[in-house]
């Protein structure tokens, strides 16, 4: 991090709130300074120079001026605003989830270039995808792995015996897979199929292009989704808000028959 009064960096906007009449309080995930909070003055006015360049999930080149509490964005130029993501309700929902995930797992002012690249690549992949689910799962696994939460997938997380090719148990509390003998006593553990284990192992050592070539059945997709969701909730000790929205969307729509709110 530089100490001059103004500095330039590229970043992705992962959160934004109204601030005063027309300003926005942004949370950026930047290449050089990690997560930063900054003010975009007048960003909500029509005709603002910043406006669309500081919208949620935009990859922008920005100039910031150091403020007493919060930095102020003086200039912004969008590099990529992932238009296909914005045009799709499903993909945009994935985008909301990704940004909330990154926000929840990072601390302010801690540079993490590797995570930035992973996040950016994920958004680029998402922009070309039809279905975002698999991309989300791959991202979750890589994110956890990068931050030191890589699940133990080779040996039993309790007794260290090599896992046998059979239905085993997955325990967020133990940080990985448990063998049949150790799985029962742990109440939080749930079963993990041979195929789910294989997919997770494979994803941990391949890149995006290879990862997306894996064909998954609906059940397998659901199983991995459940595992990862529980694991993340255990680590964060909370459920992310956008999950509920993704479920609303996936489970079909509000109908007239549904009970009134």
């Amino acid at each position: 991090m530089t100490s001059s009064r103004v500095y330039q960096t590229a970043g992705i906007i992962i959160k934004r709130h109204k601030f005063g009449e027309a300003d926005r309080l942004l949370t950026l995930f930047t290449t050089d300074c990690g997560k930063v909070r900054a003010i975009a003055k007048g960003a909500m006015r029509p005709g603002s120079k910043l406006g669309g360049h500081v919208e949620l999930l935009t990859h922008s080149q920005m100039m910031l001026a150091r403020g007493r509490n919060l930095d102020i964005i003086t200039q912004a130029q969008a590099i990529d605003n992932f238009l296909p993501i914005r045009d799709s309700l499903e993909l945009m929902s994935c985008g909301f989830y990704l940004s909330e995930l990154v926000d929840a797992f990072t601390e302010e002012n801690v540079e993490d270039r590797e995570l930035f690249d992973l996040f950016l690549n994920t958004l680029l992949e998402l922009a070309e995808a039809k279905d975002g689910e698999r991309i989300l799962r791959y991202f979750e696994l890589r994110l956890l792995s990068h931050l030191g939460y890589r699940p133990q997938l080779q040996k039993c997380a309790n007794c260290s015996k090599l896992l046998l090719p059979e239905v085993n148990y997955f325990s967020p509390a133990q940080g990985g897979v448990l063998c049949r003998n150790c799985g029962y006593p742990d109440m939080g553990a749930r079963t993990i199929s041979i195929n789910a284990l294989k997919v997770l192992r494979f994803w941990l050592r391949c890149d995006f292009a290879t990862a997306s070539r894996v064909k998954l059945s609906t059940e397998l997709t659901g199983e991995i989704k459940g595992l990862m969701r529980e694991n993340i909730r255990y680590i964060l000790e909370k459920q992310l808000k956008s999950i509920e929205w993704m479920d609303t969307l996936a489970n079909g729509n509000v109908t007239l028959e549904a009970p009134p709110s």
Partner: protein
Amino acid sequence: MNPDFFTTARPISRLIEELNKLPGIGPKTAQRLAYHLLQAPPDRSRDLADAVLGIKENLRLCTVCLNITDTDPCGICADETRDRTKVCVVEEPIDIIPLERTRKFRGLYHVLHGVISPSDGIKPENLRIRDLLVRLGSAAVTEVILATNPNVEGEVTSMYIQRLISPLGIRVTRLARGLPFGGDLEYADDVTLSRALEGRQEMY
């Protein structure tokens, strides 16, 4: 608590405290307003008090469009000359004001009272979307104009509502997105500019 709380007469300090809670009114302004009201004729205070109480007692939501109103249905919904086949969906009651100022729209409105925001945990159930569907099911509406704000939450809300309405066979339109008047191409972002290009119009 106001530091002058014990040196000022109770009724005045109470008024100062209350005024101080209003947005944009600091302790000094609150004091000045309080002493101004003290010296003003009693009618003035009564009018002000009435007006303040009035907004709580007389206002409610229009049963048709959910706009804030003192009559039910509201002035717009009760107006016989307005086009009942078109409904313009807005996020907040305040969004109706600029749309009315254009005098281009003569249909009715529907106020959602918010916008879907997954990251803030605001879900469709928290908005008045169901009221819209019920309304569309019973009234002869042929077009729904989605006028949510042109940002990610507004777009998501519009896409979601469009998905709910499309099986009803009603035409769904969205306000055009493009360059603002008085703006500058140099500062336009790619989303706005590509939408502006897509929505370009023949000049005549």
